């Protein structure tokens, strides 16, 4: 069965969206306040996208849906995202 993987695996999909490497960005979880690199998040891969959950509390940080002509990014569970320059 597909098992959860680490946030670092999202570097490819993120590379279609951002010029910075978002896996090294830090996010604050709205649920538990944990501050971690997205590389440390837990990712549930799905052929149509990814559910990215907090590595500490499992709350949903973000959802990525790959539609045929676009990528939808929902950032429901993070209060901020800090991207290294």
């Amino acid at each position, binding site marked *: *069965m*597909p*098992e*959860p*993987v*680490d946030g*670092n*695996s999202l*570097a*490819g999909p993120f*590379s*279609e969206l*951002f*010029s*910075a*490497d978002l*896996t*090294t960005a830090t996010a604050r979880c709205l649920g538990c306040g944990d501050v971690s*690199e997205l*590389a*440390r998040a837990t990712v549930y*891969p799905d052929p149509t996208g990814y559910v990215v959950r907090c590595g500490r509390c499992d709350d949903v940080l973000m959802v990525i849906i790959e539609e045929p002509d676009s990528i939808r990014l929902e950032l429901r569970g993070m209060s901020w995202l800090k991207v*290294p*320059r």
Partner: protein
Amino acid sequence: MATRGSSSAIGDPLVISERETRDAPPHRIGLWHVGVVVSTHTETPTGRSIVLDVPGWGGNLAGQHADVRLTASDGYQAVRSYSIASAGDSDRVELAVDRFPTGEVSPYLVDDLLPGDELELRGPLGGWFVWKPTQTESVQLIGGGSGIVPLVAMIRSHTDSASTAPFRLLYSVRTSDDAFFRSELERPTPHLDVTWLYTRRVPHGWPRPAARISLADLAASAFASSLSPAVFVCGPTGFVETVATDLVALGHDPQRVKTERFGGA
């Protein structure tokens, strides 16, 4: 370019140009390169390594990965991520792939791909699970099965840069036949210490019985947490989760433990 410094009254062109040439991992946006298979090598009964020439790749850091895209003649496409076993400035990229029997891409890469074939690669990707030759602290590598691939890249980078950072590797495999890069890892390498762990069948006379990796293995063979090593763990999800939990129990700072789990898809 220094000219951008003129837009700021206190702009120091040197500082700005330094930021522009900072030591960031190479990361190229969404671009697919065409790679040509140079050679393949059977590593295990289910896995092989693949060397590709990828014009425009421009090199990668040890531990980065690439997305591989295959396109069928009717336009159908499939994309999967693979760790890169090579590191350095070259356009030559080595991947190593284990076959998932129910997979869509890995059986093609392991069984069908021939020298001269073309496929597309995106990357190098990921600036987190990487080791740079400028790092001087002790490094503990822990790999399970084909999870050795990014760790081999780190070992190669360590050797190529003549780094004296102490490296240790714990490599867990079912049997000795299932080890990727076996002969390379058995060769004595300065500042590298390798511990083999067998989970199904041990070589004749091997002192440790076949067993999954345990806290006792980590306590016996890994760098102690008091040395604050950088720790890289890669393998199947269950392996990585067990090891990461045990490392924290042994006092390792979770912030110094980096993991890369690959799912079973």
